[in-house]
């Protein structure tokens, strides 16, 4: 791996880390708004800003450093108790976290410099913070880089070094300083003064008694030589004098003191601007920013203003710079893994290797021993798989807590008072799922705030607390993760939904529907009951999109509502997208897998006339689907057929199959693009004997069954 790759990797790491920090910052601020006295929270928030500034400096991300510095300063005053947390302060700081987050995303995409609109945003936001600054928040001091390229004439210096007696104890070895000097210039002579050495019996071997006079010829300015001894200056006597009367050189050297110049790299390399000119321009930039208390003017502007380069050159440099950074924007996706989990996996693999060797053919080993060894391998494979899958599991809490901000902003916008309670944040689910569920959840949350929870006045009228409550809850249930979005609002209006559905021709007038069926209508495409379309929801993309997204993740969604009391929307998702517990069935030569969590029971198909597609299950009518017929599988049905009873969203249907082959865990392989329109099949898997089994999509099977047309259209796959 080249150094460049290393740095790129480090930058990716920084982006991941920075995202976490910003989120921590935001969460902390929201917490502070609720409990302004939280000392630990103040510390945490300050630390987040502080760390962010520190690491962004490491990558030379000046815009980020400078912006974060001001935020940090404000938070610093809060920490010192000079500033109280007020809603106004939090409201001023929250957009700043958004801005920081935008800058980080920009960096993730390879834009290491802010664009004009970001700069404008930054300036505006900082202006918003200015009332909270006691004038002391100058943008972060620029970081000086040693080693000037445009070298001024070399000068000779004499260095008188009298190290303090404690310097060895402090870890400061005089010899290493002398060695370092030769990296910035040429040491032409060293005179060691040992006159301070006491007699042997009085000598403390841990103390330093030596002094040195060093002749140094260097192009480095005096300040840089001085900086070499920064760490020992306190208890040593360091004198640096020009060896001859080289005052001119001295003055020149002072002028040549470099400042950091990452921004102008392109310009400098191209030769359009010298390093010194750049340094000067940076100084002006800093000075102006300090004076006006704003984000610095872009360096290019200053160079142009000072008549150093033409605008064309700056523009060309900017586009070139952008082009070089664009190439690195392919986003490598990373995930943080608890080290303990990785260790466990490695342990298991180790055990597996041992177990494997014991299954090897050894003469004289009984079948019993070998069976035992094989059992062990199987157990380990199972555990390895389990542990490997758990690597992708992340707690859902982080995603849920993101909604604190949404709830705050949206409820403010709507003028409602809403508090958010989050429970079950520890529940873990597949990282890929977490990412894909957050948009649907966002929609549900907004919907609840917008349509569910009533305005304060209305709530009072109904004898409810003025403040509405939105509850996000997550828990594991039978191999699934369930996420609930619950509000204590007005609940769904059955009549209005039905009226609307009839108006939209989703149901025929006069159809008798159960409550659940009526409420499920809100998930139908093209359904929206909100009488006035607000800014937040009711823009056409509605609950149907939510449902589609959830279904695409092999999940289901249900709604539970009581008029006047509230609504709970429950999303049920598999823990992972990669593996399901399946139930293998055979129809003729084909095998199918029914997701096990959908299977309720299996019974034998009672004999009866062939044409009838329903049976009597303990006194209830159970419709069933003959898979042989549905998929057009040739051949005669088995003499004794079985019915697998599946259930989804409260609807039960039987699947008629030839044989029941048992439970198994299967790795899902998605069907190719070619089969993306095939109904009733959600994927495939490869069985132990190398054959392919198709995974049935119970949802569409049941839905298709209630609508004969679809059943007939089902694509034959036998």
């Amino acid at each position, binding site marked *: 791996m080249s150094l460049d790759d290393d740095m790129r990797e480090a930058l990716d*790491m920084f982006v991941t880390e920075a995202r976490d920090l910003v989120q921590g910052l935001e969460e902390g601020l929201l917490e502070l708004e609720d409990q302004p006295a939280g000392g630990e929270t103040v510390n945490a928030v300050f*630390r987040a800003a502080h760390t962010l500034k*520190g690491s962004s400096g*490491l990558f030379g991300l000046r815009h980020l450093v400078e912006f974060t510095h001001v935020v940090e300063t404000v938070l610093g005053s809060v920490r010192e108790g000079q500033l109280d947390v007020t809603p106004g302060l939090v409201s001023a700081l929250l957009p700043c976290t958004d801005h920081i987050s935008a800058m980080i995303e920009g960096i993730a995409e390879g834009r290491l410099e802010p664009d004009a609109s970001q700069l404008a945003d930054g300036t505006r936001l900082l202006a918003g913070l200015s009332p909270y600054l006691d004038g002391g928040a100058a943008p972060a001091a620029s970081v000086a880089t*040693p080693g000037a390229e445009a070298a001024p004439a070399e000068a000779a210096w004499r260095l008188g070094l009298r190290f303090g007696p404690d310097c060895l104890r402090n*870890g*400061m070895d005089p010899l290493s300083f002398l060695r*370092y000097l030769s990296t910035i210039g040429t040491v032409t002579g060293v005179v060691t003064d040992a006159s301070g050495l006491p007699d042997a019996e009085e000598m403390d071997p841990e103390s330093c008694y030596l002094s040195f006079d060093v002749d140094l010829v260097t192009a480095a300015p005096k300040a840089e030589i001085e900086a070499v001894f920064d760490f*020992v200056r306190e208890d040593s006597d360091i004198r640096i004098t020009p060896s001859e009367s080289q005052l001119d050189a001295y003055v020149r050297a002072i002028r040549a003191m470099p400042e950091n110049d990452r921004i102008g790299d392109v310009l400098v390399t191209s030769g359009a601007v010298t390093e010194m000119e750049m340094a000067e321009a940076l100084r002006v930039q800093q000075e102006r920013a300090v004076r006006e208390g704003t984000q610095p003017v872009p360096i290019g502007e200053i160079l142009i203003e000072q008549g150093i380069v033409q605008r064309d050159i700056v523009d060309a440099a900017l586009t070139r710079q952008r082009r070089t950074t664009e190439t690195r924007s392919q986003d490598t996706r990373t995930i943080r893994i608890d080290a303990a989990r990785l260790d466990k996996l490695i342990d298991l693999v180790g055990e597996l290797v041992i177990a494997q060797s014991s299954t090897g053919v050894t003469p004289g080993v009984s079948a019993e021993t070998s069976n035992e060894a094989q059992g062990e391998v199987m157990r380990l494979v199972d555990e390895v798989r389990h542990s490997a899958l758990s690597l992708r599991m992340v707690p859902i809490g982080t995603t849920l807590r993101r909604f604190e901000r949404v709830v705050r902003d949206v409820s403010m916008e709507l003028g409602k008072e809403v508090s958010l309670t989050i429970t079950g944040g520890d529940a873990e689910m597949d990282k890929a799922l977490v990412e894909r569920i957050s948009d649907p959840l966002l929609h549900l949350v907004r919907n609840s705030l917008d349509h569910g929870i009533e305005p304060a006045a209305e709530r009072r009228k109904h004898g409810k607390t003025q403040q509405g409550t939105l509850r996000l809850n997550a828990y594991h249930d039978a191999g699934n993760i369930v996420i609930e979005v619950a509000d204590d609002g007005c609940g769904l209006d059955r009549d209005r939904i039905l009226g609307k559905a009839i108006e939209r021709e989703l149901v025929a007038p006069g159809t008798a529907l159960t409550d659940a069926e009526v409420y499920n209508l809100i998930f139908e495409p093209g359904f929206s009951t909100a009488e006035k379309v607000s800014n937040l929801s009711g823009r056409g993309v509605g609950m149907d999109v939510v449902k589609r997204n959830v279904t695409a993740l092999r999940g289901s969604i249900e709604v539970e509502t009581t008029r006047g009391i509230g609504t709970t929307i429950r999303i049920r998702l598999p823990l992972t997208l990669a593996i399901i517990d399946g139930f293998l069935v055979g129809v003729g030569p084909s095998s199918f897998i029914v997701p096990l969590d959908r299977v309720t029971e299996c019974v034998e198909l009672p004999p009866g006339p062939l044409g009838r597609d329903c049976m009597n299950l303990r006194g209830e009518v159970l419709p069933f689907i003959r898979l042989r017929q549905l998929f057009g599988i040739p051949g005669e049905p088995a003499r004794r057929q079985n019915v697998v009873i599946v259930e989804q969203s409260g609807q039960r249907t039987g699947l008629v199959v030839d044989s029941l082959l048992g439970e198994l865990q299967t790795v899902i392989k998605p069907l190719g693009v070619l089969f993306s329109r095939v109904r009733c099949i959600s994927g495939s898997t490869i069985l132990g004997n190398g054959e392919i089994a198709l995974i049935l999509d119970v949802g569409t099977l049941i839905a298709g069954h209630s609508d004969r047309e679809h059943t007939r259209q089902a694509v034959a796959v036998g």
Partner: protein
Amino acid sequence: MAKTILIVDDSASVRQVVSIALKGAGYEVITANDGKDALAKLSGQRIHLIISDVNMPNMDGITFVAEAKKLPAYKFTPIIMLTTESQEDKKKQAQAAGAKAWVTKPFQPEQMLSAVSKLVAP
């Protein structure tokens, strides 16, 4: 043999960048996430220089430095503290604890390299 440097910082990207810079200059590098982790790593190997952040979870940098200085093997080990301009008091505390050198955050990798090479040659 190359000199070994221990980097203690809770930020993975800081550890990474500093490691790259130091390894590039020919040092051996060990990293630790916080003071506690770092203390555990002190024993059993020879470390020639320690770079430590101040603000860290579990055990902060100043406590760590004070603990490290109590160990006979680290009596003479130079320690570089990562401080910020707003932390003059922390810098003083760190110096009192035994960390006489410092690098001010935000810093560039080159600055770290120059600070390190003042104290220990690769």
